């Protein structure tokens, strides 16, 4: 019995829905293949409405209902609340949240499904320094927990690399008009622009950048070159570069297979959140079979320091290791939008492997 | 006896089931006459007019216009049959100009006829002409009343229902309006009028109906009533001089 707490409405609806779909897809596949240790997965998801108080209630409810593992929420604010409950009850909890603080609270039951911003940003900063040879960079970010967290991390990472931060431009979630933000970036004259906003805003920002004739490199994280962004920004997305932890475009067989299955099931392509949900479900399968019983405490204990490979089960998509905090590590990609397609230009090794 | 244009036949009506206002009310108004409806405050006079003009549907009984049953018929249709109604209380479109208020009075008329008729009304109420382009709500109480009456006359109705026209009008205008109604009646219009200014109204009316607690209490020729000392005592207050102690 696995419970999902996901943002099906409110500001996080897109991410939550993807995450949920990914998890559902995996559950279906696993069940079709005989379940976990012969038991069928009973996956139910509840809508947190992107509201922490509701997440908390849902987490309690999941525990009351005897959930084995809790998945989600994706939003960092919500997970910070709900993880208190899963911790108290000793139920393992996978999250899609990327805020660094989640795993720094010493909670032994919390596990990530993706990179933290703390892990991703140094890779980006390094690329800005070495790949783009930029001396200074402007930052455009969205003022929510996601954007703010990323902004703080990139500033730190850039400082470590000795790259100067020019204009520091915050934008609003759901912002439509980016003309003043882009004008600010143009004015500041940095060598590149780092854009860290949600999908729709990324698309709008790219369009406005194109409109105002911004000619310098535009770099971002996962969201910047996502499928949705390319679809929404059209032409204007071309040339954007992003570091991507997970992407359905990754040149890996398992991912391609997943991509196809997802499209078949939901008619759209999955974003990284879909992969998060999908792989998390397989993490559970692999690990449960490894410990040989359905026991949350043992599961959590075994997760720390665990390594899972595609060989164990193709469902985990890529080899992955978990550390003592519950953070994970694996390969990541540098992608670029070329002719309306996200193209992986470089595969970056896991942090731990460097 | 003149033809009965409007008839109430044991009409029961009210604003909620637990509160009956018109209690088996039976009355009528006749062609070419001014029928005056009087009675204490809250007797149900305005309710009679509202029921007649389709704002209230009788719970039982029958309302007839020229012999046809019109229970709950919507105002628009009654208007088309030649009825017009000037209600009590606020009845204008406050932020529209006086001119536009008048124009809307002729909403159901052919467009081409309206300007001439408006002119006619303005002749009758010169005060309104001076305020034509002001917002209706800025006018004084009496001016608004003139506008309302004028607006109804625009329709040249066959039957005019008019609720306390004298409220807010200066004595000179009260007499003008009454005389006007008289002349309309003489020309064949049926007028059903509610008034508290009983003494003046009786002078111009043919027949007076006294309503008490939603029932017809009296139905007499107006001239007869005017001279009746009994009614004088009851409704005009003469001699009710039992001084009331002021509340401390």
């Amino acid at each position, binding site marked *: 019995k696995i419970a999902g707490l996901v943002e099906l409405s409110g500001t996080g609806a897109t991410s939550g829905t993807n995450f949920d779909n990914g998890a559902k897809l995996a559950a279906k596949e696993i069940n079709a293949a005989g379940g976990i240790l012969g038991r069928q997965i009973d996956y139910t998801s509840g809508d947190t409405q992107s509201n922490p108080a509701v997440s908390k209630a849902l987490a309690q409810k999941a525990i009351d209902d005897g959930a084995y593992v809790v998945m989600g929420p994706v939003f960092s604010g919500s997970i910070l609340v709900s993880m208190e409950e899963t911790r108290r009850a000793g139920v393992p909890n996978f999250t899609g949240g990327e805020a660094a603080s989640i795993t720094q609270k010493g909670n032994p039951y919390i596990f990530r499904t993706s990179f933290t911003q703390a892990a991703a940003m140094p890779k980006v900063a390094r690329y800005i320094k070495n790949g783009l040879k930029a001396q200074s960079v402007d930052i455009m970010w969205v003022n929510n927990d996601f954007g703010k967290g990323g902004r703080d991390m990139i500033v730190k990472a850039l400082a470590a690399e000795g790259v100067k931060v020019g204009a520091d431009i915050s934008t609003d979630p759901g912002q439509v008009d980016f003309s003043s933000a882009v004008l600010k970036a143009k004015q500041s004259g940095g060598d590149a622009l780092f854009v860290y906003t949600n999908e729709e805003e990324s698309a709008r920002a790219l369009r406005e950048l194109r409109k105002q004739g911004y000619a310098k490199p535009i770099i971002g994280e996962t969201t910047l070159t996502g499928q949705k962004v390319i679809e929404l920004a059209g032409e204007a997305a071309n040339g954007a570069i992003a570091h991507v932890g997970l992407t359905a475009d990754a040149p890996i067989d398992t991912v391609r297979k997943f991509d196809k299955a997802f499209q078949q099931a939901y008619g759209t392509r999955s974003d990284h959140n879909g992969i998060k949900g999908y792989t998390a479900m397989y993490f559970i399968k692999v690990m449960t079979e490894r410990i040989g019983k359905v026991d949350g405490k043992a599961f959590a204990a075994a997760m720390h320091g665990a390594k899972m490979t595609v060989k164990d089960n193709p469902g985990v998509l890529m080899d992955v290791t978990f550390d003592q905090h519950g953070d994970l590590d694996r390969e990541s990609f540098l992608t670029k939008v070329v002719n309306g397609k996200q193209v992986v230009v470089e595969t970056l090794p896991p942090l731990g492997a460097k | 006896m003149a033809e009965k244009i409007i008839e109430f036949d044991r009409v029961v009506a009210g604003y909620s089931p637990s509160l009956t206002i018109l209690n088996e009310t039976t009355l009528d108004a006749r062609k070419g006459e001014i029928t005056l409806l009087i009675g204490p405050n809250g007797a149900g006079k305005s309710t009679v007019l509202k029921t007649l003009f389709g704002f209230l549907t009788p719970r039982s009984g029958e309302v007839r216009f020229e012999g046809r049953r019109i229970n709950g018929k919507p105002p628009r249709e009654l208007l088309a049959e030649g009825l017009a109604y000037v209600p009590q209380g606020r009845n204008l*479109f406050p932020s529209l100009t006086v001119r536009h208020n008048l124009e*809307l009075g002729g909403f159901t008329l052919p467009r081409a006829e309206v300007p001439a008729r408006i002119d006619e009304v303005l002749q009758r109420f010169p005060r309104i002409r001076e305020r034509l382009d002001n917002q209706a709500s800025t006018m004084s109480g009496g001016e608004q009343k003139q506008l309302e009456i004028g607006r109804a006359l625009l329709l040249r109705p066959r039957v005019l229902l008019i609720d306390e026209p004298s409220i807010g009008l200066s004595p000179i205008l009260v007499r003008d309006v009454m005389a006007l109604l008289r002349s309309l009646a003489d020309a064949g219009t049926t007028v059903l009028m509610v008034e508290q200014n009983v003494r003046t109204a009786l002078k111009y009316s043919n027949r007076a109906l006294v309503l008490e607690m939603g029932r017809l209490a009296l139905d007499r020729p107006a001239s007869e009533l005017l001279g009746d000392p009994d009614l004088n005592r009851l409704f005009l207050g003469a001699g009710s001089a039992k001084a009331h102690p002021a509340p401390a």
Partner: protein
Amino acid sequence: MNELIQLIVSGTATGAIYALAALGFTLLWQASGTINFAQGDFVMLPAFTMLFCMIAGAPLWLAFLATCVAAMLVLGVGFKKVIVDPLIRHGVIPLVIATLGVSMALKTIVRAGYSAEAHQFPAIFPAGQFTIAGVNVSWADLGTLVLAAVIVIALQTFVTRTLTGRAMQAVAQNTDAARVLGIDAKRMVLYTFLINAILAVVTALLITPTYLAKFDMGDSIGLKAFFAAIIGGFNQTRGALLGGVLIGVLENLVGFYWSPAYKEGVALMLFLVVILWRPEGLLGKVEERKV
């Protein structure tokens, strides 16, 4: 200097969008005395309908026409029959609350029934742009502005200069009096909602390329549009244009010269200042004397 002009130009374009949406508010207010909390969703729905038509293979113009018909049926006749008619006799507040419910329902239906994601929408204006005096202006911006202005003027003329327009206002101001005069209140309300439905479709057509079709696209538009309507003057159709453009420009200026973090607050500040200083709005006329 150049950037100031650029900011003003692009702000004006955004403002035209607000103005279009605000127009629905002023229309409904003047002609039915109600506030439609679902106004934003009234724009969202046609956007999706057009999208559907296009997915089904219809060209944009056909999608637009089909949606106009559908909107008149659903947002016009349907809304009036199902919601306004039974509610209007209870006064304005229940109706306003009901539109809140409608707004919630519409959003959820689109989200749960179709998709929670944003969808791209083709633009009716050519994609290009031109530069005058160093300022970039896109055809879309210019087109939206011009169209918005034309619609505002047309609507203003209709509502204040025609007998039908005034009858619509009359119904809003005093329904009983309107009935006494034989004005078919229900029909006037129907006209109002039919016009509003068309307005919503046109607004959707113009703004969805920028806003993207998304189930909650109406939220931010609705709010801004409402503020724009009040700032310009609720009982003046042309007030919507002034209010919209004012907000659009000011937002841009604040975002650039002060801090983008409080950009969203701009419409609000302006709104607060206006209602405290001139509650009737910048172009609004003072309403009736009270006693």
